[in-house]
């Protein structure tokens, strides 16, 4: 079956961006993939603005502590109340950061950049509750998203977020901590089986003394650094952390590992064409890890647009929510409700399950997450209450869940509080904008046309009668609205 020009363009937009946008629907029938790719590159060229959502009181408190204080002595400088405030406010601000970044994913024209930043966010997965450190790390991901893998690796390895998360602040000459050295090899560069336990032990020594200060700046603590000779990957010398990162980048396996992971993320998560990955990885290595040329190799190829790659990927929860909001423009009066969606569906930005990131694929789908995905479009359309309780996260509560809070949460999630807002979905959908593309389509063709716009699966994968039977045919407008919800409430819509 021939793949239509529109489907190819939508495929590109789902993989290199967060899906087609309502306003740009009309062009997708005619524009070429090459042209669309060039537009994506051009609109992402601008350096992203720093997202700063940190609370002013929090900023004042933290800057008031002064630079002279060492991280280790922080506890003595702050009252228990201050510490509690910092923790709680930082977590509140992380929620704002989450929503702000999601808004960028939805509205920013730098789609390619945000999509790649989203990939790196999952690759360099990091759970760290300090809002300042997370803001800095996010900015590194976004500003370097399309530049060079080596640069991102080095920036992440020297970020307060990652050094804190992987305990490198405790990696000292006398007591090496191997956590960072292990993950940098296993998850960030080489992949399992391409290093020895001895390489990890020795590399951990090279990273001793790598730390950070209160402002989140990288600090090299010479006194804690092991100056002795180390043997890593068969080479012996007085290596430091930068040397190890360079060795990892010199190893072709890093190029293969990253290319393979990107291929699964961008092309096909079920079927990996090894020959193609090797070809891409060779070129990625030769280009000294130039990300944009690797992306160009993928998105301007013919094989990327092969039918087997289209609609083969299960959207992650963030991709699903952002995708709906791009195609169906809406204002959410209570934007926090998106945090509930993320929790229930299993992907909360800045809270990856562990340093390995979100496993993706079929792991997104179980009975309850699928049923919620299928209900979501209807909830948005009818402003219903979600009526669902996410699991609590004790790393986020930090023992602050006292009796009063427990009772409050119980009431919220069981809908027993008047004016309960945590679960109310108040969405103002801009249907007029959305419906423009269907203006001249005759009623009898609507279901087919809408299916080609909303679904990435082959024509006729859902029987037209089944959708029509669920539609409200009282007017063209209600028909379009109800068919939209019906098409989004299908297993096919979970795919891109």
């Amino acid at each position, binding site marked *: 079956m021939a793949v239509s020009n529109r489907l190819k363009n939508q495929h590109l937009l789902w993989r290199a961006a967060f899906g087609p946008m309502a306003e740009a629907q009309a062009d997708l029938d005619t524009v070429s993939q090459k042209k669309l790719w060039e537009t994506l590159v051009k609109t992402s060229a601008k350096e992203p603005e720093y997202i700063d959502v940190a609370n002013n009181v929090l900023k004042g408190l933290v800057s008031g502590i002064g630079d002279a204080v060492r991280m280790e002595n922080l506890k003595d400088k702050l009252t228990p109340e201050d510490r509690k405030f910092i923790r709680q406010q930082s977590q509140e601000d992380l929620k704002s950061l989450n929503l702000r970044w999601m808004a960028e994913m939805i509205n920013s024209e730098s789609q390619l950049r945000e999509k790649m930043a989203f990939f790196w966010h999952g690759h360099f997965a990091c759970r760290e509750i300090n809002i300042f450190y997370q803001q800095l790390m996010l900015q590194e991901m976004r500003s370097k998203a399309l530049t060079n893998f080596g640069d991102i690796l080095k920036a992440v390895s020297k970020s307060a977020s990652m050094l804190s998360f992987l305990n490198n602040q405790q990696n000292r000459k006398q007591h090496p901590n191997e956590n960072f050295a292990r993950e940098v090899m296993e998850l960030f560069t080489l992949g399992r089986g391409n290093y020895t336990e001895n390489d990890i032990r020795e590399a951990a020594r090279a990273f001793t003394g790598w730390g950070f200060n209160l402002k989140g700046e990288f600090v090299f603590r010479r006194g804690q650094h092991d100056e002795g000779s180390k043997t890593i990957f068969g080479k012996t010398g007085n290596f430091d952390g930068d040397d190890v990162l360079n060795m990892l980048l010199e190893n072709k396996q890093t190029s293969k590992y990253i290319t393979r992971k990107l291929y699964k993320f961008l092309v096909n998560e079920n079927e990996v064409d090894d020959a193609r990955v090797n070809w891409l990885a060779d070129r990625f290595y030769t280009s000294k890890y130039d990300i944009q040329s690797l992306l160009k190799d993928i998105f301007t190829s013919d094989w990327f647009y092969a039918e087997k790659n289209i609609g083969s990927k299960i959207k992650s929860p963030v991709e699903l929510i952002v995708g709906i909001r791009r195609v169906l423009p809406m204002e959410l009066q209570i934007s926090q409700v998106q945090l509930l969606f993320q929790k229930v569906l299993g992907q909360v930005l800045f809270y990856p399950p562990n340093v390995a990131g979100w496993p993706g694929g079929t792991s997104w789908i*179980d009975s309850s997450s699928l049923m919620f995905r299928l209900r979501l479009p209807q909830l948005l359309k009818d402003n219903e209450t979600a009526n669902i309780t996410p699991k609590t996260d*004790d790393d986020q509560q930090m023992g602050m869940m006292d009796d009063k809070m*427990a009772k409050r949460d119980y009431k919220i999630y069981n809908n027993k509080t008047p004016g309960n807002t945590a679960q109310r979905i108040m969405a103002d959908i801009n249907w007029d904008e959305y419906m423009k593309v269907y203006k001249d389509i005759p009623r009898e063709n609507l279901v087919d046309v809408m299916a080609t716009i909303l679904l990435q699966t082959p024509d006729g994968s859902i029987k037209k009668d089944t959708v029509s039977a669920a539609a409200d045919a009282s007017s063209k407008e209600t028909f379009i609205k109800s068919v939209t919800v019906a098409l989004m409430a299908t297993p096919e819509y979970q795919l891109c």
Partner: protein
Amino acid sequence: MVIKRREFLQIGSLASASFMMPKFLKAFEGNGGKMVPPGNKVLVVLQMSGGNDGLNTVIPIRNDIYYRERPKLGITKENALLLNDEVGINPALSSFKELFDQGQLGIMNSVGYPEPDRSHFRSMDIWHTASASNEYSSTGWLGKYLDAQCKDCDKPTQALELDDVLSLALKGDNIKGLALKDPQRLFNASQAQYFKALAKQHQYEHERPADYLYKTMAETISSADYIYKQSKMHPSTEVYPNTELGKNLKTISSLILSDINTKVYYVSIGSFDTHVGQENTQKRLFTEMSDAIRAFTNDLKKNNRFEDVLMMTFSEFGRRLTQNASGGTDHGKGSNMFFIGGGLKQKGILNDMPDLVNLDEGDVKYKVDFKSVYATVLNKWLGADDQLILGKKYEQLNFV
């Protein structure tokens, strides 16, 4: 995974067919008779989220170090419910004391794992996946049990979690457990005409991603119907406390008393993250546990099912021996597990009380790897291949 449409139709029809079977009649044999075939062992896992302080749960009433390190928080011998000369239990766990006296409670001390992690999420991950602390897995131990046991299962209802969201523990590579708060609600949510119509019109091909989604959807629709009908078959008549856990255990009991094929139930309570005001929080949560479990065990006893049910509790870690300045305790390491049931082979206090002299950074050192407990439960209680499921051979314990 290839599932043919015809197989699906068969699965669908089995749900209704099971109601015609003679086995169904057994449920109405009366109080004396067994409701389901004997030997149908059931596991109930109770997750105590947040890191429960094991030392104020099972109290070393003759240990001076305990009282020295917890001048404010320590529970005195007079206040504890005494299990023997050395050991008391938290006064809010009165039903546990009763079960102990009846030989229906086992306590395993100092359970943990090598190279412990003090982050809630990471440590819970390790307990859920039964992986080493430097390994990451996207499947849980009960999910892997489903993968191993359920290749030919007619319905994915072998493991149920009483929750809106499914835990990692119940996610396998090919098969996942099913989460539900309430059979009625799951039934209502999944039986929409449109979903049924969608499931009906889908043509299964070869391993397409859509097939996986349709399979999950069809199984949810058919399971929701099956669970709902089973839950109404022999609803529990016992009075349960009107708490979250009380309601959940009543749902579990109603299902255990039915003909359902469920082997594992999973339910959580929390948060036990008692950095502040530990005494009140533990009291509130333990009271909820104690009252709900009293009703649950009485219910099962009256219906002759207590011998077939094993309840097991765990928490992602214990807490620091030394109390903190806020009337609480901070994240620690080893902690205790409870086993409750009429079929325990070993009862009472199963091993030594925690060693408070040789600590691991101020925390109770682990003596029993929790994976050994899993291996025992999988092998001896659920009759499964523990080595295949856990990927390694662990020592078998003797409590069941």
